[in-house]
């Protein structure tokens, strides 16, 4: 199968391409990105290339398929919330071609058999590439190490705890030492479980007024201090997931300046919402970590733009209606995100007046680098994972349009959010995984 994507504007941050160009694909790989001369001519096909299929990307952006550092697929264990089929359809519709899934399934991803089963089930041409993050400790209990080397052979790309803390710092240090032995990276959320105990919202004016138990910013910074010190001590590659506060960003920048190998990401909802959006106890504004103050939100937006935060992820968490239709403190945290990652990234870029290439780097090349995979690029020879989207087409988020089984999002059906960016098609290794051209 040979595909010619013509007349599009290619943005490939990994290779510094940002111009009108054609993309040529053969046998599931990129074989050429050409064109973009001042005359505006189409690209020249590589010698001997005869397309079986042509995608007309006139007026569209052509970029590497998005790479998402956190998407809960809910398998195994929570199939009533989502299935691989539903969430993979959502990923493709969202232009996401690679995703990492956290280990908080039931049972957790703590043994090789489970990971093999998941990666085996996920191996279908129309499915995004799935990169499981293995459990760092058995059952995520923070007591005993998992067989990390075996898990890595089964397909795990990193080890973490999802949102469950390791209480015992001795276990934490040893887990890092063990991971460092094999060169594995460790992905952890920085939140002190004692300071966050019973908390459901950012500890501040809003939580005080609504009478919601607060989680103070020091819950993040204290945990960060512990993790950063242990990273320096053990030399492990540390990736900090879902940073939420301005103070946290500063600490990570300082740690980096002192030579600690650390990266971090932020969830896309945290770029757009803050604790004020809880409004009248809106359970869709409940997140873990919590939405923090406006000042924190602005720091996250700026930090991601400057590169102080490396990557942006959907933190996709499909939750069924019953678990959200509850009082705020009983509602489950999280939002569906696969189909919102691109439009919310574009919204952030537009509001920050960022070059599109910089914004797209945070959801393509940068997360691919953290994952250590050769995705997020249109370099010749790499897998033809491509997203074609219309930058200006309005993007309506409705219960009927969402392919994810999770309909839980604060952006549901709200036109005034002015979301733009509609995926026209998604290719995974040259396979047309989503065709939304006429949607």
């Amino acid at each position, binding site marked *: 199968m040979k595909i010619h994507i013509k007349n599009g504007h290619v943005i490939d941050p990994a290779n510094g391409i940002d111009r009108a160009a054609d993309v040529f694909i053969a046998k599931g790989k990129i074989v050429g990105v050409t064109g973009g001369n001042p005359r505006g001519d189409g690209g020249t096909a590589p010698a001997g290339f005869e397309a079986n299929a042509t995608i007309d990307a006139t007026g569209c952006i052509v970029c590497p398929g998005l790479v998402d550092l956190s998407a809960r697929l809910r398998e195994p264990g929570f199939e009533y919330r989502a299935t691989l089929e539903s969430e993979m359809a959502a990923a493709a519709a969202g232009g996401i071609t690679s995703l990492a899934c956290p280990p908080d399934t039931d049972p957790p991803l703590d043994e090789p058999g489970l990971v093999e089963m998941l990666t085996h089930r996920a191996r279908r041409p129309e499915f995004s590439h799935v990169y499981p993050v293995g459990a760092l400790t058995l059952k995520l209990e923070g007591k005993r190490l998992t067989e990390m080397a075996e898990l890595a052979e089964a397909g795990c790309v990193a080890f973490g705890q999802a949102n469950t803390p390791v209480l015992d710092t001795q276990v934490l240090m040893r887990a890092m030492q063990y991971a460092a032995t094999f060169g594995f990276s460790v992905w952890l959320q920085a939140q002190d479980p004692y300071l966050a105990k019973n908390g459901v919202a950012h500890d501040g004016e809003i939580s005080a*007024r609504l*009478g*919601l138990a607060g989680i103070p910013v020091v819950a993040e910074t204290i945990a960060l201090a512990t993790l950063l010190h242990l990273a320096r001590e053990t030399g492990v590659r540390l990736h900090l997931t879902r940073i939420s506060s301005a103070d946290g960003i500063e600490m990570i920048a300082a740690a980096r300046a002192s030579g600690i190998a650390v990266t971090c990401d932020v969830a896309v909802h945290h770029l757009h919402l803050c604790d004020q959006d809880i409004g009248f106890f809106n359970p869709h504004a409940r997140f873990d970590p919590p939405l923090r103050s406006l000042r924190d939100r602005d720091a996250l937006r700026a930090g991601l733009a400057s590169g102080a935060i490396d990557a942006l992820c959907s933190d996709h968490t499909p939750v069924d209606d019953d678990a959200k239709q*509850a009082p*705020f*403190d009983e509602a489950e945290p999280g939002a569906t995100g696969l189909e919102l990652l691109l439009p919310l990234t574009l919204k952030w870029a537009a509001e920050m007046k960022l070059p599109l290439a910089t914004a797209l780097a945070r959801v393509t090349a940068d997360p691919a680098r953290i994952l250590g995979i050769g995705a997020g690029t249109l370099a010749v020879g790499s897998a033809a994972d491509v997203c074609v989207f219309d930058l200006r087409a309005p993007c309506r988020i409705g219960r009927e349009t969402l392919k994810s089984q999770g309909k839980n999002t604060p952006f549901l059906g709200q036109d005034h959010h002015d979301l733009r960016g509609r995926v026209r098609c998604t290719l995974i290794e040259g396979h047309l995984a989503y065709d939304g051209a006429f949607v």
Partner: protein
Amino acid sequence: MKRNPQLNAHGELQHLITLEGLSREILSAILDTAEPFAEVAEREVKKVPLLRGKSVFNLFFENSTRTRTTFEIAAKRLSADVINLNINTSSAAKGESLLDTVDNLAAMQADMFVVRHASSGAPYLIAQHLAATGRSHIRVVNAGDGRHAHPTQGLLDMYTIRHYKKDFTRLTVAVVGDVLHSRVARSQIHALRTLGVPEIRVIAPRTLLPAGVADMGVRVFQDMKEGLKGVDVVMMLRLQNERMQGALLPSPQEYFKYYGLTPEKLRLAKPDAIVMHPGPMNRGIEIDSAVADGAHSVILPQVTFGIAVRMAVMSMLAGS
């Protein structure tokens, strides 16, 4: 931000969920309506027919004999039929969701839900659910939700202050005790601000104050003697048993010594100061018996006024 969900499109009170965001006119109207109901209680026949034929469901997801009883009396004096449900011992234990319970009771032709729940915001959720399912005619009265609000308590406190002090705009009021966990304190502070009290003080150790309390428009005092100087009204808060010993406070004895209201500390307030408490009191912990039973105490009149205020709220929401 969306419209305050307890008001209808005309800005009229449809539910009573919080005092925050209610205008001075609405608060005053409730207090004015309560005045004649206070007289009903003095009559030989303590009933008026305003809610005849209406069904009031007391939905108590959290135990409270006293509050439930005052709502029950208020509804009965308005001639309503009252059904009491203690749900923590029935449906919730069987795993039924809050909204399933509400749907079932709504199907029994309820006219009003009086809701007490341990989670902040639960009455909002119920009101929104009723609106979303086309049953906005069922009124919701918040009888205390988590740490969020206890609007009828706040109103009866305002009624009491108005009764004894007449004019809100020249008062200094101190709220003393566990503000962090108190829905009563939040409702009091909102109402006092709306009614124009120029100085609202809160007095508590740091462990019992929420992070953003100063943003609510209050002056914060850690030293009770400082905080009580020259106040017209002292509003004591109840300290829950489980909070007396642990990481919030070392002991009830130490709390009483520094934050208990004793006759000596009360002498720092104005000579005609009144002392209030939402009950039930912990004598010897937050309040000395000599104060609770003393000349400044208006704690029992608060209870009496509470019935009139609840009658006023119920009749305004559902009265024909």
